[in-house]
C-alpha cells in the first residue's frame, strides 16, 4: 500500500487534493451561510440581506464547481497514467524473466496480474484520490462546522459515530466471508460451463448432458443462495446508516428546541445542522465504500509486486565474451528445476562441432526438453557448464546468445498477424525471396503460395486457421530464416507425415551444413541419420553414438527401436 502511495506523483496529487479541498470547503460553508441567512435575514425580515447572502452563495457554488471539475481532470490523469506505467513495468519485467521465473507464475496468472489486477489498483487509486480524502473531510468538516454553530449539537454527532463504526464493522464481518465464498462458487460455475464447451463431444458421446447440467445447476443453486445471503446482509447497510443519522436529526431537533427556548440558539442553526447531518452521512457512506475496496486492492497490489520484486535468476555478466568458433559442449552438467527434489539431468557430457547433427531421444520426462532449454539458457545449470565455442554461455550476452541459437519449441507458437510478420521475427530485414526460400525448405511454400494473400495471409490467434502440420512447418521456416549458428528443433516434426518429415530434414541438411543442428524426436526414422545420438534415460545419458553403434550395443536404444518396430516383428 505504502509503495503505491510513494509511486504517485506528489506534485500533481497535491494539486488534485487542493481542488478537492476547495470543493469541500465550498460545500461545507454553504449550509453555514443558509443558517446566517435564516438567523439574520429571515428572522429579522431583512430582504436585502437575503439577496446579498444568496448572491454570495451562488458565487461560492461556482468556486466549488471549479474544484469539482478540475479535480477529476487531474486525478483521472494520475490514476490512468499510474496504471499505464505499472502495466508497462510488469510487462517489461516479465519479458526480462527467464523460463525459471516464468514457470513460477505460469502464463494464466501473469496475464491476470498484468490486466485485471492493475485495473483493480487503478480504481483503488482513483477512488482513493477522491473519496478517501473527501469523506473524512465531509465527516470532520461537518462536525467542526456544527461545533462552530453550536458545541452542544456537535456532541450529538460525536456520540453517533461509534454506533456508525460498530454497525459497519459488524456488517463487514458477516458479509466478507460470504463474498469470498461467492467468488469461489463463481469460479466453479465458470469452470463447469467452460468444461461443457471444451468437452462437448465427450459429454454427448457418453450421454452425460443431464449429469453435467445437474452439476452446474447445483453449483448455481449454491451460488444463488450465498448471493442472496450476502445480499441480505448488505441490504441492511445503507438503511441502517440512514436510520442512525435520521435519528441524529431528531435528537438535534429536540436538543435544539430546548436550547432555543432557553435562548442560547437560533433557528437557522438547527436548519444548518440538519444539512450537515446529510453531508456527514454522505461522507460516511463514501468512506465505507472505499474501505470495502481496499482489501481487494491490497491483494492485487501484493500480486503485482510479487512480479515486480521477483529477482532475476539469469542476468548478463558485466563483461561478456562473444564466441568465435561454432561448437556446443556439455561439461558434467547437472540440472534441477527450482524446488524439485530430484535432479532432472545428471552428469551430461557431450560435444558436437560445426556441421554436425545431434539427435536426442528418450521417454517423456527423461529430460529432453530440459536439455534443450539449457542450450538456449532458458534455465541455468546447477553444476558443470554449457559451452559454445569453448566459452561458458553464462559469459555470453543473452541477446547475443539468442542470435547464436535458433529454437523451435515443442508447441508450435505463432502470433496473431500475418505470415510475414511471424517470419520477420526471426530476421527483421529478411527479403521476400529469403522468406520464400525458408518456406521452401520447410515444405511450407506450397500451401502458403496457394493462399490468396501469400506471405501477407492472416494468422489468427494461436495460428487457429492452420492445421497442426502447417503450423509446425511455418515454425520451422521461421527457425531456418534466422542466421544462427545452432538450430534446435524440439520435437518439431511430430505432426508431419513421414514423407514431409524426410523432405524437410533433407533440405535442412543442405541449408545447415555449416551450422550445428539439434533434433529432439520420438521417431527413430527422424533421427537415425544424425552424426551423434544422445539417449536419455531418467535424466542420465544412457548412450551416445551413431545409430549403428547404439543399435549394436545400447539396451535402452534397442528397446526404443524395438517398441517402434513392434508390429513388424509380428507380421
Amino acid at each position: 500500500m505504502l509503495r503505491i502511495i510513494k509511486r504517485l506523483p506528489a506534485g500533481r496529487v497535491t494539486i488534485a487534493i487542493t481542488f478537492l479541498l476547495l470543493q469541500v470547503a465550498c460545500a461545507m460553508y454553504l449550509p453555514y451561510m443558509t443558517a446566517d441567512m435564516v438567523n439574520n435575514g429571515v428572522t429579522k425580515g431583512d430582504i436585502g440581506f437575503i439577496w446579498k447572502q444568496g448572491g454570495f452563495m451562488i458565487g461560492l457554488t461556482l468556486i466549488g464547481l471549479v474544484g469539482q471539475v478540475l479535480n477529476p481532470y487531474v486525478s483521472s490523469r494520475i490514476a490512468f497514467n499510474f496504471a499505464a506505467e505499472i502495466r508497462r513495468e510488469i510487462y517489461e519485467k516479465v519479458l526480462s524473466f527467464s523460463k525459471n521465473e516464468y514457470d513460477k507464475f505460469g502464463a494464466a496468472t501473469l496475464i491476470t496480474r498484468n490486466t485485471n489486477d492493475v485495473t483493480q489498483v487503478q480504481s483503488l487509486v482513483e477512488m482513493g484520490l477522491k473519496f478517501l480524502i473527501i469523506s473524512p473531510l465531509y465527516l470532520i468538516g461537518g462536525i467542526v462546522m456544527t461545533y462552530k454553530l453550536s458545541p452542544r449539537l456537535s456532541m450529538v454527532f460525536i456520540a453517533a459515530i461509534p454506533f456508525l463504526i460498530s454497525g459497519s464493522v459488524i456488517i463487514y464481518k458477516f458479509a466478507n466471508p460470504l463474498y469470498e465464498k461467492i467468488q469461489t462458487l463463481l469460479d466453479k460455475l465458470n469452470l463447469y460451463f467452460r468444461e461443457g464447451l471444451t468437452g462437448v463431444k465427450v459429454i454427448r458421446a457418453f450421454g452425460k448432458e443431464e449429469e453435467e447440467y445437474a452439476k452446474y445447476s447445483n453449483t448455481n443453486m449454491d451460488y444463488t443462495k450465498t448471493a442472496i445471503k450476502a445480499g441480505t446482509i448488505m441490504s441492511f447497510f445503507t438503511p441502517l446508516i440512514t436510520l442512525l443519522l435520521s435519528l441524529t436529526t431528531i435528537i438535534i431537533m429536540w436538543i435544539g428546541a430546548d436550547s432555543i427556548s432557553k435562548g442560547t440558539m437560533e433557528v437557522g442553526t438547527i436548519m444548518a445542522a440538519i444539512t450537515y447531518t446529510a453531508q456527514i452521512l454522505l461522507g460516511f457512506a463514501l468512506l465505507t465504500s472505499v474501505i470495502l475496496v481496499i482489501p481487494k486492492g491490497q491483494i492485487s497490489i501484493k500480486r503485482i509486486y510479487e512480479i515486480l520484486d521477483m529477482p532475476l535468476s539469469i542476468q548478463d555478466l558485466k563483461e561478456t565474451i562473444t564466441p568465435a568458433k561454432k561448437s556446443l559442449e556439455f561439461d558434467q552438467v547437472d540440472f534441477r528445476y527450482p524446488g524439485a527434489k530430484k535432479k532432472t539431468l545428471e552428469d551430461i557430457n557431450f560435444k558436437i562441432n560445426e556441421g554436425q547433427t545431434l539427435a536426442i531421444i528418450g521417454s517423456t520426462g527423461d529430460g529432453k526438453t530440459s536439455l534443450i532449454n539449457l542450450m538456449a539458457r532458458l534455465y541455468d545449470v546447477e553444476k558443470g557448464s554449457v559451452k559454445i565455442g569453448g566459452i561458458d554461455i553464462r559469459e555470453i550476452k543473452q541477446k547475443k546468445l539468442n542470435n547464436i541459437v535458433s529454437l523451435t519449441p515443442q508447441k508450435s507458437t505463432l502470433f496473431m498477424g500475418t505470415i510475414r510478420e511471424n517470419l520477420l521475427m526471426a530476421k527483421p530485414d529478411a527479403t521476400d525471396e529469403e522468406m520464400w526460400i525458408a518456406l521452401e525448405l520447410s515444405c511450407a511454400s506450397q500451401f502458403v503460395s496457394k493462399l490468396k494473400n501469400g506471405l501477407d495471409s492472416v494468422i489468427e490467434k494461436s495460428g487457429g486457421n492452420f492445421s497442426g502440420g502447417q503450423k509446425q512447418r511455418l515454425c520451422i521456416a521461421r527457425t531456418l530464416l534466422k542466421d544462427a549458428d545452432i538450430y534446435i528443433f524440439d520435437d518439431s516434426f511430430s505432426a508431419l507425415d513421414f514423407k514431409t518429415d524426410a523432405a524437410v530434414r533433407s533440405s535442412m541438411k543442405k541449408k545447415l551444413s555449416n551450422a550445428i543442428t539439434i533434433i529432439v524426436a520420438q521417431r527413430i526414422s527422424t533421427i537415425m541419420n544424425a552424426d551423434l545420438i544422445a539417449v536419455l534415460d531418467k535424466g542420465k545419458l544412457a548412450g551416445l553414438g551413431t545409430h549403428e553403434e547404439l543399435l549394436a550395443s545400447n539396451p535402452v536404444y534397442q528397446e526404443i527401436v524395438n517398441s517402434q518396430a513392434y508390429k513388424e516383428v509380428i507380421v
Partner: protein
Amino acid sequence: MMPSKKETKTAVKLKNLWQTTKRLTGFMKKSSLLISLTIVIAIMGTIMQVLSPKLLGNATTLIFKGVSSKAGIDMHALASILITVTVLYIGVFITSFLQERIMNVVAQKTTYELRNQLKAKMNMVPVSFFDKNSNGSLMSIAANDIDNIANSLQQSLTQLISGVITVIGVICFMFYISPLLTLLACIMVPGSLVVVKIFTPKAKKFNKSYYKSMGDLNSQIEETYQGFSVVKSFNGEKKSLQKFDEINKNMYESGWKGKFFSGCVMPLMILVQNVVYVLISAVGAAFVVSGSITIGDMQAFLQYSQQFSSPLSRLSMFWGNLLTAIASAERVFYLLDSEEMEDYHKAFSNKKDETAKVVLKNVSFGYTEEPLIKDFSLTVKDGEMVAIVGHTGSGKTTLINLLQRFYEIKGGSIQIDGMDIRNLDRKDVRKKVGMVLQDTWLFSGTIYDNIRYGNKNARPEQIYAAAKASYVDEFIQKLPDGYNTVLGEDAGNISQGQKQLITIARAFVADPDILILDEATSNVDSRTELIIQKAMRRLLKGRTSFVVAHRLSTIYDADRIVVMEQGNIVETGTHKELLSMDGTYKDIYQSQFAGNNVTTTGFTA
C-alpha cells in the same frame, strides 16, 4: 464471428428494446408476487420518506413560532411530532431493507434461471454450433453478461421504482407547499438534461475506445506470455514492448478522458442543483418574510428539492445501466434462440432382419450447402474392425461424427442393428456407440470420477478393473492420492500419455457395442505409445469398431481398411490386398505409415 454479430445487435437495439425487456420480465414471472410486493413496499417507504421533511418542517415552524411569539416552545407538540418522525424513519428503514432484499432475491433467482437455461441450451444445440461460436464469446455471455444482468436488475430496478415514486411524491408535496417555488425547482430538469446531453456522448466515445484498447492490450499480453519462449529466443522483447506501449498509450489517453467527461456530469448536475437551492432559499426566505409560507415549510421545501434532484440525476445513470443490461440480455437470448438439434417425428424405415451391425446407405452430408460426403455406403459386420485411412480433409472425422449422430445426415440412412438411428433417441445411439477421441478431454475432478464417467453405476471393482485393463492402474496407485487425485482444469498435472490411458479406461467402463476411435498423433514417447496400443487392442476386442488410423499397428490389425478420398470410399480391403492394388492406399501408406519400416532393417531379423 461473434463481434460482428454484436455490432449489428447494438445497432438494432432500440427496435428490440421493448421485446427484450418483455422477455426478461417473463423470466421474473415466478417472482411476480415478490415484485408487486416490492412495488407496494417501495410506495409505502417512499411515502414515509416524503412525509418526514414536511413533519420536520412543522417542527421547525413550531420552534420558530415559539421563539417569535415569546410564549415559549410547545415541547409536548414538538415531542409528538418528533416521535411520529422517528416512527416514520424506522418505517423507512424497514421498507428500504425489505425492498433491497426482495429485489436481490428476484435478481438472483432470475439469473439463476437464465444460467440454468443457458447451460441446458448448450446440451440442445448441435455440435456444429460450437464450430461457429468461439468458447471465449460463449463464456463471456455465460459469465459477464449474466453478471451484468444480475447487478443491473438488483440496483437499477429498485432505484428506478423508488426514484420515480419519490419524484412524483416530492412534486406533490412541493406543489402543496408552494406552486411558485415548485416551478423554480423544476428548472433543474432541463438544466440537468443539457449537462447530460453535452457530456455523456463524449464520455461514451472515449469509454468505447478505452475498452477497445483494453481488449487489444489483453490479447497482446496474452500472446506474448503464451509464446514466451519464442519471443525470448527471437529477441522479440523490444518489438513486443513497442507494440505494447502504443496500445497502452491509447488506453491511457482514452481512459482518463472518458473518466473526466463522465466525472464532470455529477459536479455540473450538483451545480445546477445548488444554484436552484440558493434561488429557492432566497425566494423562499422572501416568502417567509412576507408570510406566505412558514419557515418550516421552507426548510421542508429545501429538503424536498434535494430529494427531488438526487433521484433525477441518478435516474439517467440507472437508465444507462439498464440499457447495457438489456444489451446483455439480448446476447443471452440470442444464444437461447439458436437452432436446436432436430428431432425426427416421422419414422424412418427399419430393417428388422438385418444381420449386419452397422449399415450406411447412400449417405450424403455437408457442413454447408456443398456436400462433403456423397452417396456413401458401407456395411459392417458384428465384431468387425474397420480402419479408415485418408488424407487430411478426405472426410474421415466427418464420417465418425455422423456415426455418433453429432450431425444429422442430409440424405440416405445409417442403421445400427437394423434400426435407423434417426428413429432412436440420441441417448440410445450414444449408449451403443462409444468413443475415444483424439483430444483427451478429462474434467476437473478425481481420476476415479473421470473413469466412472462412462457408466455412473459402475462398481469400484469395475473401475479398478478398467484401469488395470488400460495399464494405468499402477501409475494411478503411485500418485499420492491414488484414484482420488484431483485433476486440474485441463488435467495439466498428468502427462498426455496417461490422459489417453484414462480415456481408454473410461471407454472400458462404458462398455459399448460399437466403438469409434480417433487415433491421436500427439507427442507420446514410443514406450508409452506401446502401452496405449496394447490397451486399445484390448478395448477393441470383440467390439465392432471404426478407427481413424494413424498407427501402423491399427492398419495391420484391421479386418478391413476403408480408403477415403473427397468424401467417398475409393478402395477397401485388407492391408495386403490394398498394397498389391498399387492405388491410393499404397500412396497414403507410404507417406503416412511406412516410415517406421526403415528403422527395423537389420534388427527384426
